[in-house]
Structure formats: C-alpha cells, structure tokens
C-alpha cells in the first residue's frame, strides 16, 4: 500500500515536472509569441481588486491579441500569477513570472507586493508597469518599475482638501491596516495634508484578519470626528460599511481608489452611510474611446461567466479595470517602440512612451511615475447602489 502511494506520488511529481517544463514553449499556432506577465493578487485581502484589474488586462488582450514588433506579428500571451496579496509570496510569484520569460510585467494591485517584488524584477532586468499601486516607494530609486496611476501624496492631499472643503471637517478619524503599505502610506499623507490645513486626526490601525470593526467605529464616534477616513482593502471596506450602518455612523466615509469597487456599492446599497472616494476613471463620459470601452467590456462580461464572477457578479466597471485596460496598451506601445521583446530594450525606451487611454493621458516622469494631476471624486448613491460623479480635483 505504502509503496503504491509512494510510486503514485513520484509519478505525480514527475508529471508535474513535465508539465512545468512544457508550459513555457510557444503556442500551437506557429506565430511568434511575446509574453506579458500579469502580477496580480487573485486571493487574499486584495483578491477582489486584483481580479478586477486582471479583467481589464484580459479584456484588452481579448480585443487586441497581437502586436507588431519590427514588422513581425507577435501573439501576446498573458502569464498570470497570483501573488496572494501577501508580501512573502510576492518574491516567488515574481520569480515564477521571470522564469517563464516574460518581456515585461503589469501590476500589481496593492503597493506592498509591488515594492516587495520590485528588486526581483530589477535584478532579472524585466521592466514592470504598476497599474494602481500608488505608494511612492514602488518606483522610487528603481529604474525598472514604472506606473500609470497617480501617487499617494497626491491622493492623500486631494482627500484632505476634499474633507476640509466639502464637509468642513475639523477632526478626522484615519484607519489603516497594520503592515499594509497602501493604507498606512495613504493615511500618512492624508494626516500630513489635513494637519497642514489646521485639522486634527485620530489615527488607528487594525491587525490583519480583523473582522470586528465595532470598536473602531465606536472610537470614531466617541472621538467626535467629522470624517471617517479609511483607505483600506475592499474586504475590510465591506465590513466597515456594515458596522457603520449598524451603529449609525454620523459622519461621511472617505477612501482612496481601492474603494471604487462594486463590492463597496453592494455593501452601501440601501444604507445611510455616505461614502466618497477618489479614483482614476469615471464611467459617465461621452468620449468615444471611453464609451467603446464601457460597452465593449460590459459585453465581454455578459458573454463570459467566469469574468462576470471575477467582477463581483455584476457589470459595474471598477476604475482598476479601466487602468488594467490602459496598462495593457501602454505595454503594447512600449513593445512596438522598443522593437524588441527583450526587457532591457523595453526599459530603455519606456520613459518616452505615451498613450492616451480611457483613464486619460499617460506619460512618465523621471521617476517612472505617471504624469497625472487630476483625480475624480465619486460618491455612492445609497438608493440605487451606483456611483455618482462629484468633481474633478487637482492639487495646485
């Protein structure tokens, strides 16, 4: 019996090796293949957001599956790997991508995993384009990491201004998740900006795995705060909204780009919780490029059940999906411009790549960050469970 099991195990492992080896070869169609790594969380705290971002990339890949580099048509193959939203899985997930021979990498949703993997990409000379990782540390001092989104100091300041101007807030409650670079960073910049505006902040953190937010909401109430600022992952967001609704939180909730998600909409629908977020993309535009994207993507969801599930079960478009969509085209631009599939060549020309995407114009500055100076503010319509566009904000 034991021997049989042992033999089976060995066979399994051996077959795994064969598979693993056979995976990296070119596709059956005979076309040349260029691989783009998709480095996104599919599970863990940021799983929902990561999946929506991946969807954008997959949709873009579905409508533009080839790219012409130096006159040769290449088939674009996405290599998707799950970084599990966890900084300690980040390195092996990144190594996995690198070992599959990707030309460049897109992602990740969540700044922590991006920072954690940055050196792995750099040392393997694979350029990475961050899609929605907003923490400054992602690109700072790393020549191989670029990004197409705005940064936290900007976003934090926008939110601080918004809290002050729109809600007349004097005291804010800021809540971050321990060990999460995204929320801790965003809180930090918010606090700096808000205090510069003469406000006061109560800053608290919750440990990973928290599902009981009752005490935090109570703390905000008891502290006499005017806004509840909590740019955390959407898993926590849903629980915070639930708890805020239960306790009748008497102040608006403010959050960053992560909260631009249908999970938040679903949680807030039918409640009295006021929620405003800053984000990259607004659906309601009449621009042809944007309406094409919106309609096309909704059609894509309708025809693809898995995609619909990954989008959270409805066809509300998250900003991260639009960003993922844009990121894919930026990657194609880079490939075309470089005229090569080698990472080092792509990295050389990346600073000069520009693209007009559905989320606006994309160009890189000397740090490798996107040149963006506007953010959209959206608000939840509690009755319909849809986003309401509020304003375009920028910082002078």
């Amino acid at each position, binding site marked *: 019996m034991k021997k049989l099991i042992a033999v089976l195990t060995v066979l399994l492992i051996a077959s795994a090796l064969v598979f693993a080896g056979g995976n990296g070869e070119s596709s059956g169609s005979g076309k040349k293949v260029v691989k783009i790594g998709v480095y996104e969380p599919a599970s863990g705290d940021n*799983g929902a957001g990561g*999946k929506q971002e991946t969807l954008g990339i997959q949709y873009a890949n579905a409508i533009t599956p080839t790219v012409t580099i130096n006159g040769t048509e290449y088939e674009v193959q996405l290599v998707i790997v799950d970084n599990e939203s966890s900084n300690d899985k980040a390195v092996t997930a990144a190594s996995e991508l690198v070992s599959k021979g990707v030309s460049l990498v897109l992602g990740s949703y969540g700044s922590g995993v991006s920072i954690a993997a940055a050196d792995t990409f750099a040392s393997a000379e694979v350029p990475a384009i961050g899609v929605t990782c907003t923490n400054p540390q992602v690109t700072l001092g790393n020549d191989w990491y670029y990004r197409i989104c705005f940064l936290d100091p900007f976003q934090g300041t926008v939110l601080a201004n918004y809290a002050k101007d729109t809600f007349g807030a004097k005291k804010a409650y800021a809540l971050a998740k*321990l060990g999460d670079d995204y929320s801790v960073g965003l809180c930090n910049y918010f606090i700096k900006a808000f205090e510069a505006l003469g406000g006061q902040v109560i800053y608290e953190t919750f*440990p990973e795995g928290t599902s009981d937010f009752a*005490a935090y909401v109570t703390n905000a109430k008891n502290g006499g705060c005017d806004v509840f600022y909590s740019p955390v992952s959407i898993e926590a967001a849903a629980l915070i909204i639930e708890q805020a609704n239960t*306790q009748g939180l008497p102040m608006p909730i403010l959050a960053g780009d992560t909260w631009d998600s249908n999970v938040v909409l679903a949680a807030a629908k039918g409640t009295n919780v006021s929620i405003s977020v800053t984000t990259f993309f607004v659906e309601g535009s009449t621009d042809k490029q944007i309406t094409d994207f919106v309609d096309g993507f909704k059609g894509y969801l309708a025809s693809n059940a898995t995609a619909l599930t990954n989008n959270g079960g409805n066809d509300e478009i998250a900003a991260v999906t639009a960003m993922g969509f844009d990121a894919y085209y930026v990657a194609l631009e880079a490939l075309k411009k470089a005229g090569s599939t080698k990472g080092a060549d792509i990295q050389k020309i990346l600073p000069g790549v520009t693209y007009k995407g559905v989320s606006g114009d994309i160009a890189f500055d000397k740090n490798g960050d996107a040149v963006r100076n506007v953010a959209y503010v959206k608000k939840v319509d509690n009755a319909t469970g849809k986003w309401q566009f509020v304003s375009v904000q920028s910082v002078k």
Partner: protein
Amino acid sequence: MGFLQTNLPYLLAGISTGGQYALIAIGYTMVYGILRLINFAHGDVFMCAALMVIYSASYMPLYISLPLAIVATGVLGFAIERVAYKPLRTAPRMSAMISAIGMSYLIQNLALYVTGGLTKYYPPVPFISDSIEIFGAMTKRVTIITPFVTLVLIVVLVNIIKYTKIGIAMRAVSRDFETAQLMGVKINSVISATFVIGSLLAAIGSTLFFSNYTGVTPTVGGMPGLKAFVAAVFGGIGSIPGAVIGAFIIGICENIIKGLGWTTFSDAFTFVLLIVVLMFMPTGLFGEKATDKV
C-alpha cells in the same frame, strides 16, 4: 454623550464576541479533554459552516439552509475526525496535531478554491441582523442575543455531559482513556459525539459571529479559532466552564483594549493575558494539575 453611551458599545461588542469565542472554545476544550489533541482545524470548521450557509442560502430559504448548514457542519466534524484523526489514534501525539494542521490547510485551501479567493458575504438573518438601540448605543440585535444563546447552550451541554449515557462516557474517557476502553466504553462513538457536538456549537457560533461581521474569507476562521483556543487554555484546557469564562474575559478585554486606542495590540493582548495567567497558573484557571508520577 454620557459615559454609558460612550462605553457601552465596547462592552456589548466584548460580551458578544466573548460568547462567540466561547462556542468555539468548547469544541477545542472537549476534544482536548478526550484526545489530548489541539484540533487546529476547528477554526476552519467554523468558517466552513458560514460558507455552507452562504452557498445554500442562494438555493433555498434561510430557515431551511441555516439548520441544514448546522447539521452539515456536525457531519463535517465527524468526517474530519474519521479521516484525519482516527487513523492516528495510536500514533505519537505530535502526529495527530500535525494532521490537524494539515486538515486546517486542506479546508482553507478548498475554501479558497471554491470561493476563488473572493470574500463572500453572509446573508442577513432576519430579526437577529437588525439594528437596535439600547441606552443610546446602536448595535445589532445579535450582540444582545449572543450571550444568552451561549449560556443556554452551555447549560444544555453541561446537562448532557452530566446525565446522559454518552456524557458519562465522555467524562470517563477524558479521565482515563485506556481504562474506559477496557470497561467497554465505545471509544469511537464517544469521540465522534465529541466532534459532532463541538462542530454543532461552532456552527451556531458562526451564525452569530457572521451575522455581526459579515465577510467570510478562507482564513477568517484563523483568528477567532486561535483566540478561542487561547480562551480554552486560559480557562484550563479540558474544562468547559473554564473555556467559557476565558472566552468572555478575552472578548471583553480585547474590545476594551481597542477602545483605549491600543488597536495595534488588540490581538497580541490576548496572548499577553494568556502568558500572564500561565505564569501564575501553569495549567490555566481551572485546569487539572498534572503531576508526573515518579
């Protein structure tokens, strides 16, 4: 705002989480009492119970799916024992514990696979999920109900253990495994019963817990499970009243700590409390003093 209105929410949240921890902790402590095994998979059984409610509730009304899920959880507990622990009855204790850790891994990963890594949301249970106001503090009705449900269940359980045949057998087995076996106690059915009871209580605890905190992820059982286990150790592992008291103490303290603004330490504090207690009472509050016969 009055003092009561300010601080009542913490106390309420504390008592209610305490009650939920208690229901999980009983499973830990009963299994430990009988098998001397830390059933690491228990927290995941708690999570599974919630997932079963979520999935079944989309096919059938809640008044069917809830009891069904609770029963199914009992069956799950039974199955886990048969698959993962029974074959290791004579193996060293460490093996059984590793098996428990492996089982916990398996359940979490299965849940990850099934849910696709996305958070699932617990359906609102009518009546107990509603918001109510007491002394000016807003909370869900479940918060108020939990301690009472917990106490009722514990009274029932204690009576089962005291007076029914299976209960007496359980006590016999936990006092002396070998002798009970020699005296004709059907060890396997006693152990199965223990797992089923523990899982049923965890399922009820999960209903109460997730009605309050609705997000269910594959790892959501981890922290409550660990804390319930700490509660069981705190109260003296093997002792049911100990586990319950320990759970309430931990639930309340944890929320007070959060209320004081020491949120970074809300989880760690549980362990500080545990270690302090163990320093002075090495076998917990009500644990039996183990003396090594020389």
